């Protein structure tokens, strides 16, 4: 299983965010994206997810399901949590479970210890709890690629340890992770891509 991007470039709003960036990640590897604010970490993650289109370069994923796009084989945890405040925690999870083809909504909530809060409206969750709910989506269905955009923002110590554990297990099972972070994730990166910004 291998994710390869060569000579990638992204333009947003007519401005070149980055160019000539190479990405390579094999199964079991964690690739860390580093760089100052605005250097294009989020853009690169969204590019891999298929939300953005490359202005130049090529992105390919081999060893997965050839019928699916890269985005359809990836879980994206971005800055926005994709949580509906009007629904309960469990209902939010059940929706994404239905959408991503899983049926273990309750079990996924337990991955980050949100089981007890399942009946609460998601609108009353704290920022850290919302982040944990968002991270719980990773376990709805198995997808080999995890795209994590600063997944540790707002998490407490126990949740950080859980996140590191889950990431290690995913890598051990042969999955690959592309993560952007400013602080230590607690998992050793196999490769770091420095985005420079301008």
């Amino acid at each position, binding site marked *: 299983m291998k994710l390869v991007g060569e000579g990638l470039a992204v333009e947003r709003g007519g401005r070149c965010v980055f160019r000539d960036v190479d990405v390579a990640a094999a199964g079991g590897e964690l690739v860390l994206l580093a760089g100052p604010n605005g250097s294009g970490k989020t853009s690169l993650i969204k590019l891999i997810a298929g939300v953005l289109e490359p202005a130049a370069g090529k992105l390919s994923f081999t060893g997965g399901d050839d019928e699916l796009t890269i*985005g359809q084989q990836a879980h994206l945890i971005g800055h926005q949590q994709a949580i509906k405040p009007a629904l309960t925690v469990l209902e939010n999870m059940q*929706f994404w479970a239905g959408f991503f083809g899983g049926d273990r909504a309750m079990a996924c909530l337990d991955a980050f210890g949100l089981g007890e809060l399942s009946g609460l409206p998601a609108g009353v969750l704290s920022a850290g709890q919302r982040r944990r709910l968002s991270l719980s989506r990773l376990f709805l269905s198995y997808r080999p690629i995890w795209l994590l955009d600063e997944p540790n923002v707002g998490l407490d110590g126990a949740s950080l340890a859980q996140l590191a554990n889950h990431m290690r297990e995913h890598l051990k099972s042969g999955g690959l992770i592309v993560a952007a972070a400013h602080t230590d994730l607690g998992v050793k990166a196999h490769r770091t891509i420095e985005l420079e910004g301008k």
Partner: protein
Amino acid sequence: MKTAAALMKRDLAVAFRQGSSLGTAVGFFLTVVVLLPIGLGPDQALLARIAPGALWIALLMSVLLSADRIFSDDFEDGSLELLTMGRVPFEAVILIKATVHWIAAGLPLAVIAPCLGFLINISPQQVVPLAAAMIVGSLGISLLATLGAAVTVGLRRGGVLVAVLILPLYVPFLVFGVAASSNLVPGAASAALMALAALSLAALVMVPIAAAAALRSHMR
């Protein structure tokens, strides 16, 4: 299929729990219908003559009022990006969004509009043709509102732009809708109803493709 059902269930739950789209649409509709006879005076023959047209215009406006909410929440909270990463085509996601808008705003209005029509002296024979025409036409109206919402998502004050962009497309719906609701010429009503159905079906095919393209280019 399960994916589609999950999305529909969530959107309906959000729509009815927040109550905003249906409440706004029905409230606006009711206001127009109640104020109309007060503004025009108690000329019953005049009211009966303009009733179908007035109800159709009120329907179009009410549906447009709730249109800019169709994608804005999902766009702002990041759900829209994730919805492109599912196993269903993004076009199907759009179609479900439009259907939910129809069920939550268009269809209830189409059902209660003829009843409220009695406030403006609609003739009893017109009630059934009006309801039929509105149910058929409101599907296309919701679909076009979805297209407008897709084109203007992420813009501040997008609602005004939706109205400006989409109102011209509503003209054929208005023309055939009113024709199908008032039996001025025998036989013309059923022909107009078929034209209205054709418009709705055309929107059903074209809107998901166009709206998906618009949303993709917005996210890029």
